[in-house]
């Protein structure tokens, strides 16, 4: 993927990024800022056309956004002129589903994300954590093939964030959806990612891939205990130092060019 911004030299945002995701897998993507993780997600979602290469879903070429690829954004993507209920009902309503059917989907999801008492509240009155619950439910209402999450918990405070990680894990297990999660939190990436892809910048590329056991354990065991376990900490430090080295390298390049 070469990014062209008017008046600037083209930037190689992504180079030779190639991977395959099996149905039902949860892949987290981690990397220092500027490594192209959001660009990658935008290409998969169909918001950007790649200059080279292609994205395939179930053997079909991706050429634009579609309801089979749901998105959860960091924040500000809810429709604040609608209630919680109407936000969640957006997908089914646009698809022209019957009132009864939509009602059923919405009621079920309200319960799943724990917002049944807030159905008629306007979303702008909710806290950040609750808004992200609505965003997750709104995405699930469409029953997409794959869910793309662009730092969904990035704007939340640390405590809410931990709670929401549990919710994402629960939803993943219950629905069996394929999920790609972009995050800049190393802990979150390791905890939620059944697979983890660490990316490096300039040009954006895959640095290393991992298969991790923590997401699987996260349902049976206490998340706090998993995060305090020695194998978790070991992985966290390994990945942190790898990213740290990349950051150092970028700083070095910058001071040379300056």
């Amino acid at each position: 993927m070469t990014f062209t911004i008017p008046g600037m030299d083209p930037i190689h945002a992504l180079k030779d990024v190639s991977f395959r995701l099996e149905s039902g897998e949860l892949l987290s993507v981690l990397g220092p800022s500027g490594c192209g993780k959001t660009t990658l997600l935008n290409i998969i979602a169909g918001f950007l056309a790649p200059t080279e290469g292609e994205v395939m879903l179930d053997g079909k070429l991706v050429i634009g956004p579609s309801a089979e690829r749901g998105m959860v954004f960091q924040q500000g993507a809810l429709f604040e002129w609608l209630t919680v209920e109407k936000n969640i009902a957006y997908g089914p309503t646009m698809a022209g589903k019957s009132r009864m059917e939509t009602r059923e989907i919405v009621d079920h999801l309200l319960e799943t994300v724990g917002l049944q008492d807030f159905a008629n509240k306007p979303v702008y009155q909710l806290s950040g954590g609750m808004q992200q619950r609505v965003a997750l439910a709104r995405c699930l209402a469409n029953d997409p093939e794959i869910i793309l999450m662009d730092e969904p918990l990035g704007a939340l405070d640390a405590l809410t964030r931990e709670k929401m990680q549990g919710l994402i894990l629960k939803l993943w297990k219950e629905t069996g959806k394929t999920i790609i999660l972009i995050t800049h939190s190393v802990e979150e990436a390791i905890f939620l990612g059944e697979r983890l892809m660490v990316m490096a910048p300039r040009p954006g590329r895959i640095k290393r891939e991992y298969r991790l056991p923590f997401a699987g354990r996260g349902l049976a065991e206490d998340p706090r205990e998993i995060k305090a376990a020695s194998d978790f900490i070991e992985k966290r430090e390994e990945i942190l130092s790898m990213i740290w080295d990349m950051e150092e390298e970028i700083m070095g390049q910058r001071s040379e060019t300056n």
Partner: protein
Amino acid sequence: MSNKNQQSSLMIWLGLADNSFTRQKTVKFGDPSAINSGRAYGLIMVAGLLFLWWISTNYGWIKPIYWPPFSEVGSRLVKLLSEGYRNVSLWNHVSASVFRVLSGVFYGALIGIPLGLAMGLSSIVRGMFDPVVEFIRPIPPLALIPLIILWFGIDEFAKIFLLFLAALFIMIIAARSGVNGVNISKVHAAYSLGASKFQVLRTVILPNALPEIFTGLRISMGVCWGTVVAAELVAADKGIGSMIMIAKNFLQTDTVIIGISIIGLIGFSIEIVMRALERWLIPWHGSG
């Protein structure tokens, strides 16, 4: 401390004592929210001005032709309310002006909003209308009066057309910036939820542009109110502006003063009504 907490509510209302919010603030100079209302001084100011009016006219410091005494303005107001001015009731003068403003804003919005939205969404429409809008926008509507008189004369249509032009460009720009201000995440979200282009326009772009459109309506109302009075000063037989102008020719300063006060009151009321409507219709604005 307890003594301080028990300030009478009258003193607080007058702004002479700290209320429970400003009391806890120690930094007051530089923090506008920590300053008391100072209503008492406002009341003193108004009373002082009224007293100045009374004393200066009573003792003949000012000639009635420049500023008439209290009693004259009062009796003129009673007369205007009962008999009207030049065979037209005061209410009709006011409603003529208000009707012109509402018509101008209505037609301006009717054409301006779709055009502004289209300019934000289509390169063809933007390209076609950008030069026209950018050229006409900085022209004060009053500068168009001579041309409009040449074209349409001085009847009702000419006035409403002038106000239509005044509102049109404000509404075009408001609607266009409403489209430009849409958070791209919302549009992307709608598309990945399966919405079509038309659905995105109706369910995302339009509601998202509403606050800007409403601000545009509020500004249009204000500008049109100013323009209608000025237009009526130039040529009209009805309307609050024409009433002032005719009264001036007969040196009826009291009628002029009453007319000016009514203009101020109505301008103020328009603003209040629009703000209330905004809070009621767009409650999410400012908390997105």
